[in-house]
């Protein structure tokens, strides 16, 4: 297990490289979502086929999540972008990278691209959106509803989740409740700084938005295409917010096409 000290905290990092003899054509950095998520959502889904396709894959656990350090405070969006920036500097991955983010991880990835447009070769947002003025209170509201339920009657809430959503989801919810109890995450996220529309527009690299057809976030697809200079969106019918783990093959294929089209690797491979 690789731990990288950013100077602020230790972050758990996993890399998957192309097989021996295959020259890496690009680097992809994969950022996971909030509370119940970790780099495992990529490690066992899209990362192995990406590596086989010649992509050097970097995955890490956000602070407080997975095996990374869990400081009591420092959970605003900017803290997360600072962590990503420090991590890539430590790894000496400073050239343009293909950023991929699931849910909140996409908001972090987009924030990194907005801060350093020259370091972003593309951004793929899975069930995710840039940090707009509407984003912060919306996510704050969701966090507060979920955590209020768990904090006030954790046993009943977990029993309900276990009966209706299964044992595994209940265990994930328990871990999420612990993270919220031990840190300032639920106060910090809604207090995060957000981007202006001009800052969002300034992300000029190709952006791919992927949404579950049954998710509220799919409604954002037309707006995202209208505001960004180079954006395409895909809606996958029959899925909600967990579309990454449920339809990993389809999602990985879309992202891989985007990466290959920007590196010219697809043309090379086709010859």
């Amino acid at each position, binding site marked *: 297990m690789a731990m990288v000290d950013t100077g602020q905290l230790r972050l758990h990092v996993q890399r998957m490289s192309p097989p021996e003899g295959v020259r890496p054509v690009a680097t992809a950095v994969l950022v996971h979502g909030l509370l119940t998520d970790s780099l495992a959502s990529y490690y066992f889904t899209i990362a192995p086929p990406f590596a086989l396709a010649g992509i050097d894959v970097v995955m890490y656990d956000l602070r407080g999540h*997975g095996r990374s350090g869990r400081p009591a405070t420092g959970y605003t969006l900017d803290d997360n972008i600072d962590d990503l920036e420090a991590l890539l500097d430590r790894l000496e991955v400073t050239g343009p990278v293909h950023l991929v983010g699931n849910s909140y991880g996409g908001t972090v990835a987009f924030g990194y691209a907005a801060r350093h447009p020259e370091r972003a070769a593309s951004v793929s947002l899975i069930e995710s959106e840039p940090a707009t003025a509407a984003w912060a209170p919306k996510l704050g509201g969701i966090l507060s509803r979920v955590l209020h339920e768990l904090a006030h009657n954790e046993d009943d809430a977990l029993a309900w989740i276990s009966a209706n959503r299964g044992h595994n989801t209940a265990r994930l919810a328990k871990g999420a409740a612990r993270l919220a109890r031990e840190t300032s995450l639920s106060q910090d996220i809604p207090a995060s700084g957000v981007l202006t529309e001009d800052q969002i527009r300034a992300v000029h690299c190709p952006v791919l938005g992927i949404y579950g057809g049954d998710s509220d976030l799919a409604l954002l697809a037309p707006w995202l295409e209208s505001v960004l200079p180079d954006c395409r969106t895909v809606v996958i019918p029959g899925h909600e917010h967990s579309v990454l783990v449920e339809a990993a093959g389809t999602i990985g294929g879309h992202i891989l096409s985007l990466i290959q089209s920007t590196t010219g690797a697809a043309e090379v491979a086709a010859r």
Partner: protein
Amino acid sequence: MTPTTEDTVLADLTGMLTALLEDEYGVDDVEITMTTTFNRDLELESIDLVTLAGLLQEHYGTKVNFAEFLAGMEFDEIIELTVGRLVEYVVQSLKAAEAG
């Protein structure tokens, strides 16, 4: 060299899982058999499976690729995954490497 059998691989995996459970959760009294499930019986989280992938790689090198094995599965199959199914995969991978 000890021939690769389900018994030897089960013994290897039991060693790795016992170490993982003790390091991460302080648990040291778990019985591991071919029918033990990672999720329900061992209460392992997906991030623990990433750690297990690292342990498998340390032990078997590139002959066994746990990430690729799981990447080929549906989400529900991963939830139901048993130690026995991983044992079979490891035996198969090691035999393929020996043959190749």
